[in-house]
Each structure stands twice: as structure tokens, then as C-alpha cells.
């Protein structure tokens, strides 16, 4: 691919294209990222005059059993991991299924698209409050329907069902739209050729749709993993970490550490550990899918 890159631009041209973005990137991403690294090496509270240098201590403490944050941090990383593990399969497949459904011609299609996308538009602040109300064990509509007192937002395993379910409900539209755009990119001739070859519906899906979607799939998978790993609003608003902090995600714990306890050094160190973990997982993810593609 690289050798086909256009080489006829002026030498400065690429940088001119890049300049406006790079200014923003430099000031609001790169600089804060480095600043965050610097902060993570201190016992840092920007309001205190005394911000002692602690070296790698904020990092080593995270890996030292018995330290103040060890249990809480790894519990929260575990919660994030569990949520990602539970949610990503649904968040990747259910929207694909909905996209396939919506990609067919039927009256009112535009309306249904809007319906499935609507929750995403609401934002987690509204969606969270709404589901907290719907799932309330005592006064919620869901238990009212079921005639049971299931502790949806209080106890395991229900809290996970709730968090994953509401996240699918909330974000399904986003991935479905991306899939829809991808589906419409697949040349029709491929389907026709497959049909001529006598391929069944399932075979066509397997041999035409999926390969045709693979770049989109990779994109969706990567973005979804990142979003799930950064989950915060749902736990913060709906379960409030219940039961006993089991659904307190990494981001939620980091936010508590940084914004409520004002331990910004520790919070930054935790962010970097989480970021590295994500980078690792995503790299594996890319490698795995790339290989499959070949």
C-alpha cells in the first residue's frame, strides 16, 4: 500500500495540512499527557504549595499488596475488565444484526433507524437516570412487569446484566449506523455472483458480508473496547458502584481518587496503567484481526 502513496506534493504541503490539528493536539492532548506523567511522579494536589516528588511510588504502590489503593484499584480494574468482557460481544454483534435487519427494504425503515438510534442521542446523563428509575427494585417498571423483586441495581449478578443491557440499549444505534454505512459499501455484484454460484443466505453472509465489513468490524471492535474500558457514567449513575464497590469501574475509581480525594498523582498513575493495558489489548486485537484478514 505504501508504495502507492502520492509523492507529488510539495515538501511543505503535508505539514500545512497537518498544522491546524497539530496545534490543538499539541496543546490539549500531548502537553496534558506529558503533564499527567509529571504529575504522576508527585504527591500532587494543585491547590497545595507542597507537592513532593515521590518518584515511581504512585506506580509501585499499585502493585504492592496491602497498600492503600491496591485492593480498590485492582477491584476496579477487574470491574472494568468484567464489563468489557460481558459487553463487547453484545455491543459488536447485536448492532450488526440490527443493521442487517435495517439494511433490507421495508416501509418505515427510516423511522426504525431513528428509533434505534434515539437512545444514543440522549447521552449517559439522561440514560443513566432513566434506567436507574426503570430498574429500581422497589418502584421500577421492569420489576413491576416481571412481578418480581430482582435487585437489578443492587446485587450481583443482576447489576452486570443491567449495566450491559442498558449499554446495549444506549449505544446500539452508534455501531448499527457504522455497520449500515459499511454494508452499503459492499459491491452488489459480489452478492449477485455468490447467488449465481448457488450460495445460501448464510454462506453469502459468511463469504461476502463479513469480509466486506472487516475494516468496519475492526473499527467497531476497537472503538467499542475502548468505550467499554472507559465506562464510567453507567456505574456512576445507575449502580453507584453497588454492591460494595463491585461495579465501581477503573475510571470511576480514578475520578474519585483525583477529584474527590484530590490525589492527582495517584490518579494519573492509575490512568497510565489503565492506558497501557488498553494499548496492549488493542494491539493484540489489531494483530489478530489483521492475520485473519490475510
Amino acid at each position, binding site marked *: 500500500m505504501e508504495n502507492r502513496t502520492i509523492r507529488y506534493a510539495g515538501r511543505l504541503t503535508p505539514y500545512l495540512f497537518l498544522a491546524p490539528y497539530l496545534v490543538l493536539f499539541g496543546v490539549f492532548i500531548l502537553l496534558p499527557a506529558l503533564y499527567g506523567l509529571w504529575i504522576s511522579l508527585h504527591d500532587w*494536589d494543585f491547590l497545595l504549595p507542597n507537592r513532593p516528588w515521590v518518584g515511581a511510588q504512585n506506580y509501585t504502590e499499585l502493585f504492592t499488596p496491602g497498600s492503600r489503593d491496591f485492593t480498590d484499584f485492582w477491584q476496579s480494574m477487574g470491574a472494568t475488565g468484567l464489563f468489557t468482557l460481558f459487553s463487547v460481544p453484545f455491543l459488536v454483534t447485536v448492532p450488526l444484526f440490527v443493521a442487517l435487519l435495517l439494511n433490507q427494504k421495508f416501509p418505515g425503515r427510516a423511522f426504525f433507524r431513528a428509533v434505534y438510534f434515539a437512545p444514543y442521542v440522549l447521552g449517559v446523563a439522561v440514560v443513566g437516570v432513566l434506567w436507574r428509575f426503570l430498574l*429500581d*427494585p422497589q418502584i421500577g417498571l421492569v420489576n413491576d412487569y416481571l412481578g418480581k423483586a430482582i435487585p437489578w441495581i443492587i446485587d450481583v449478578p443482576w447489576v452486570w446484566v443491567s449495566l450491559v443491557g442498558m449499554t446495549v440499549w444506549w449505544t446500539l444505534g452508534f455501531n448499527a449506523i457504522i455497520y449500515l454505512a459499511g454494508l452499503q459499501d459492499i459491491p452488489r455484484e459480489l452478492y449477485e455472483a455468490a447467488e449465481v454460484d448457488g450460495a445460501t443466505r448464510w454462506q453469502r453472509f459468511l463469504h461476502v458480508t463479513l469480509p466486506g465489513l472487516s475494516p468496519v468490524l475492526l473499527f467497531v471492535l476497537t472503538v467499542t473496547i475502548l468505550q467499554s474500558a472507559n465506562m464510567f457514567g453507567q456505574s456512576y449513575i445507575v449502580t453507584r458502584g453497588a*454492591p460494595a464497590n463491585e461495579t465501581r469501574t477503573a475510571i470511576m475509581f480514578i475520578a*474519585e481518587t483525583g477529584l474527590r480525594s484530590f490525589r492527582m498523582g495517584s490518579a494519573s498513575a492509575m490512568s497510565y496503567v489503565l492506558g497501557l493495558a488498553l494499548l496492549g489489548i488493542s494491539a493484540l486485537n489489531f494483530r489478530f484481526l489483521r492475520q485473519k484478514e490475510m
Partner: protein
Amino acid sequence: MALDGCDRSSTRSGAQGNVITLSFWNGFTGGDGTYIRKLVDDFNKATPHIQVRMNAYMWIDLFQKLAGAVISGQAPDVAVMHVDDIPTNAARSLITPIDEVARALGLEASAYTSRVVWEGGVYRGKRYGIPLDMHPLGMFYNKAVLRKAGLNPDKPPRTGDEYMAVLEELKGKGIQGHWVTPFLFTGRFQFETLLWQFGGELFDPEGTRATFDSEAGVRALTWMVDLVKKGYSPANVSQDADYIALQNGRNAFNWNGIWQINGLKDVPGLEWGAAPVPRIGTQDAVWGNSHQFVLPRQHSVDPARQEAARTFIQWMSQRSLEWLKSAKIPVLKSVAESAEFKSMEAESQFARQSEYIRFPPAVAGIADAMLMVEKAVSQGVLGRASPEEALKAAAAQATQVVQHNRKKYGA
């Protein structure tokens, strides 16, 4: 809730000569906001040369915003915060000492109904807060439910034995009488109340060590857990479900904050009463908190504005009766003994607890350690750990927290 259409004098132009405009921040959103706004409006009408502009935020957001405002030199002139937030905010230099104001206003300990509310505004020998009110936990009860169970709706239980007898009676009638939530509202408040009633303490007085895993603590949490085990409470009660169940007649007693009074008044047809929290342990004690006036740190000090802020604080504290209608109890003896306050029935019941209201120790960063208390209560009530185990682990961690805070904020 009535649509309080009070006109907020929108014509604030006119003589711009010597008018000082103060900004006043607090966390009084919703119901409380209606009352405080009314007072601020009255103040603005009464003092044409000082105009106050009020902003209300959620408490948790208030501190984040205050940090931004202080470092960018846009700090409000006056603010209100909870007494247990004062040490942290003082240590972080977001608020300044207020001794001079207290002296100028002639305030002294003997005028207050509670020793802790007066001392609560002090951090490291300097006063940072001037008390506006207190808001303790108390016991709400549903009279119709008690009557249905053949109990006297006008004689709520006072002691642990009476309380358990009533709960047993209710249970026989198919009513779970005391719902226990594993959350801050109000599971943790109930635990703190019980801990103090059994003679325990959250921390040692200097705030160097967590002590809530003491025998008193274990008894307190065990008492709560047993309510669930014995069927006096459903398991897995969500936050506020206990309070809503009280309104629906599915719960009989709810130890909740005084702030729920006006909400209950609005429920059509609900017969409810309020009483002090019964003495379950060996002594009287109850969780409470207090709103206090504070002065945020300014980049440059303007004596005229300081004077105006003092006038405002004085005016407001003199009219606390108006404010108490938002369901608070008075801090000044003169107000507590007034006929007007005594005519406020439910609030007066809560005020009977004034002398034994308790706060956490006034050390910076204590809120972080209190999170561990919450964790223990949650684990215990949900049955994920025995009360002993839950408290022991949480207290060990809380000790690490207060130790770190001592290092960070200075011992």
C-alpha cells in the same frame, strides 16, 4: 410542591453609584433553594447598597467549581458548605479564616444549642465557619401503618427493646418495619448513629487512626444486619426506596434526614410523624451535619466587600427562622426557644436531639476515610462479609487514609 412564583426583582439597574454586588455560592438546589432565594431577595430589598447574586450547585460540584473560581480570581464573596468539608477546604486554601467576622458579630459558644456545631467551624485553632443550621437524622414513621398493626401511632418507640417489640409486632402483620439500605443515604448515617450510641468513635480525636471496628462498631453493624436477617427489612434495598416505601405504607419507620420533612408534607393523604432516633445503644447520640457560612479566598482583598459580606452573613443568621422552614433545626438557643420554632412540630422533634448530635473529627481529608465506613456498611448489610470482617478491613484501610492525609496536609 408549590410553584413559588415569587418575583425576583429583575430591575437591578438604577443607582449604580455605590452598589456592591456580592456573589454567594451554595449547594441549595431544589427545595432548599426556594427558601434561601426568598431570603436573598428579602436581603436585596432591605439593603439597596448591597446586592447579592446567588448560584446554587450540587454540593459535589461546588468544590470543583470553587477550586477553578479561586485560582482564576473569580471566587464568590460568600459561600455555604457542610461543617465536615471545612477542614479539607481550609487546608486546601480555598477558604479563609473568619475569626474577625465572628468577633465583629459578637458570636460566642454560649449562644449555641450544640457544642459541636460551634466548634465544628474551627480548624487548627482558627475559625472558618459560622453556623447557619443543623440537620440531623431522625425517625419518620407512618401512623396509618402503626395503627393498622394495632400500635399507638402517637407513641413511637424510644428504646431498643421497645423498637424491636414493635418491629416484631409489625412483622406479624406482614409489614417489614425498618428497611436498611447499604448506601450513604441513609445506611451509613444509621451506622454512625448506632456506633456512637454504643459508645464507639469513628476515629481517635486527632484523626490518626480509624476506630470504627471497635466492639461498639461491630454491635452497631450487627444490629443493622440482623434487621435484614430477622426479616424486619427486605434485602437489597435501593437508595431512597426505604423512604418511598414509608410513603407507600410498605415500611413503618425510616431513620432519615430532617430534609425529608417537606417532601412528606407534599404526599397527599399520608399520616406521618417524626421523633428522635430511639436509643438502641447505651447512650444518646445521632448523626447530624451543619451548614456554615465560609469566606472563599480572593486574589485581592477589598475591605468594602468584606464589610458587605459581613453584613450579609449577619442579616442571614438573624433570619434563620425563615430558613428553618426548609426543614432544618436552629443553632442559636434564642431561636430554638422561640415560640415560632416550637410551633414547627416535626422540626421540633428533630431539635430534641440537638445536644447529642455528632460530627466526624475536624481533620482535613476525612471524607476519604469516611468512604471506607460506607464500604463496610455496604458489605455488611448486603451480607458479603460478616460485620467484624467488613469493619476490620475497612478500618485498616481508613487508618492508611488518615495517615496519608496527615502527611499530605501536615499533622
